[in-house]
């Protein structure tokens, strides 16, 4: 496998431009300038990594997001940084020929390829709610993971379970870490993840031949370290207590904080506030809709999306903690008064 430097040479890129590229990349990855020589060495020596990108129960929004990446462009990633050997969405080949190719890649690059998983396996009906090549996707997943160097869990499906795992989870869909237990898994949650976050993760893997630093949930710290709320351009309005009360009201036109119409920014870890979507063009809050928390575990079951605190399922009642709490305190006080009166009467009379 050829190195980045060789690839660049082949394209007629000068050494000088190559070093410039390395410096830019170093800055983009948030590394100190002292890391430049390492980056240069990485670009000179690391071969193109074979990637198998398999699809389970999903909606392909992750693949769609991936190709929206502008820095790096998806074409540069797919054709020059990695070698995308199997992908349901982009591979030219189909059927048996492609399945054979997958098996061959696993054998040839045993221990050296990256497995990227979009979607997740259903366990119900022996996994036959998702069939690939006449077999359960579950088997395909286990088989493909065995020889992988590392596994990327694309999106909230692979990371947490996402929409098909929302109650009542009819197919018993599970996140991939329930099935793959002996490999390092990089979770890249979001529905879908931000394009530049996806290519950023691949870039890190390729450049440094290592798993990016992960948080306690298994997410890359450089992309999921902060809450959207703490990086939001509307944060000043939150601090000031200036809130949108209703969609398209005066506050909405002024771009005030969406906290009161259910924004999940305060509890969602993602790069929407800083990297934003489409290379910084916008993100849901900028378009006036609160964050729905799509990068968080079980966010579907924390609906309704337009309320701050989740309710408990009481028939025909919107039961948020504060409503129930206020009623319970009032009941406790009333009970106490009644109890007191009876106690007084009961304890009357001689000793």
């Amino acid at each position: 496998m050829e190195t980045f430097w060789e690839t660049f040479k082949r394209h007629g890129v000068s050494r000088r431009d190559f070093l410039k590229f390395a410096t830019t990349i170093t800055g983009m990855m948030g590394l100190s300038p002292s890391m430049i020589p390492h980056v240069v060495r990485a670009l000179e020596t690391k071969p193109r990594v074979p990637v198998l990108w398999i699809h389970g129960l999903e909606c392909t929004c992750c693949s769609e997001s991936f190709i929206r990446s502008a820095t790096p462009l998806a074409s540069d990633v797919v054709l020059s940084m990695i070698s995308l050997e199997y992908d349901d969405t982009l591979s030219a080949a189909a059927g048996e020929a492609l399945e054979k190719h997958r098996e061959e890649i696993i054998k040839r690059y045993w221990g050296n390829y990256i497995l990227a998983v979009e979607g997740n396996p259903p366990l119900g009906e022996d996994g036959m709610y998702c069939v690939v090549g006449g077999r359960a996707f579950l088997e395909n997943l286990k088989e493909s993971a065995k020889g992988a160097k590392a596994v990327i869990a694309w999106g909230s499906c692979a990371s947490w379970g996402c929409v098909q795992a929302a109650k009542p989870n009819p197919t018993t869909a599970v996140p991939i870490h329930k099935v793959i237990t002996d490999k390092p898994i990089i979770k890249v949650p979001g529905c879908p993840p931000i394009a530049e976050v996806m290519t950023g993760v691949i870039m890190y893997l390729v450049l440094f031949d290592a798993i990016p630093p992960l948080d306690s949930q298994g997410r890359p710290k450089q992309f999921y370290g902060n809450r959207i709320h703490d990086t939001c351009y509307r944060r000043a309005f939150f601090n000031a207590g200036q809130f949108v009360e209703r969609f398209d009201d005066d506050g909405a036109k002024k771009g005030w904080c969406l906290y009161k119409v259910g924004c999940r920014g305060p509890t969602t870890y993602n790069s929407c506030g800083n990297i934003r979507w489409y290379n910084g063009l916008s993100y849901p809050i900028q378009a006036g809709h609160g964050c729905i928390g799509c990068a968080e575990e079980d966010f579907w079951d924390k609906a309704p999306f337009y309320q701050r605190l989740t309710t408990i399922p009481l028939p025909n009642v919107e039961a948020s903690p504060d409503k129930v709490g206020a009623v319970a305190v009032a009941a406790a006080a009333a009970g106490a008064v009644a109890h007191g009166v009876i106690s007084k009467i009961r304890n009357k009379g001689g000793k």
Partner: protein
Amino acid sequence: MIEAKKIYIFSPGLRVWHWINFLTIMVLFFTGLYIGNPFFLGPVGVEATYAYREGITMDFIRKVHFIAGYVLLASFLFRVIIAVFNKRDRLVFPAVWRKDYWTSLKEITLKYTFIMKDKEGYEYIRNALARTFYPLVYLMILFMIATGFAMYGMSKPSSFWSFLLGWLLGFLGGEFSVHAWHHWVAWLIIIFAVLHVYFVIREEAIKKNGELSSMFSGYKVFEKEPVDIKDIEE
């Protein structure tokens, strides 16, 4: 009938802690309610960045909440320390292994359901119901401190607090759920507080035993020798 006896129950440290605890919980509760649902808007017509000069903002209320949180944490630690040095302050856990706990539990249940009169039966430094609930309250306060500082700490992912407590958020089903938990338990503490105040007043009204003032003076009057007197005497 033996002489009524004044017994020294609450150490000065405990009394100070009790009132600080009361005040911080009240501050935390009401600021917390606002933070969860900002029912009045901050200064309008002011540039958001400079709103802090213009009256009560979310930022100010949150600051109060966080300061009160630190006070709660400090007072909780103080409470633990005095318990280490003073036997009187270790009266925390229900003595379920002792027979008098179960006798007390039976008696207090009968009294509160109006079957027994309050002055009948034995006397206790602390009845079994109180002994059962106080440790739960300590646990609830600890829970509030832990979840509160976990959420607070995560605004700086490399901070001490997120290192110490960050894992808790994932453990409790994500930060969004932790917010809800933080609210549920806050209300439980307030329900406890309401009932606590009621039972203190009730005790005072029926027995006139100085229950109400004991948290200021430290002394309470007993007509009989309390069964569990050994728990507070050296």
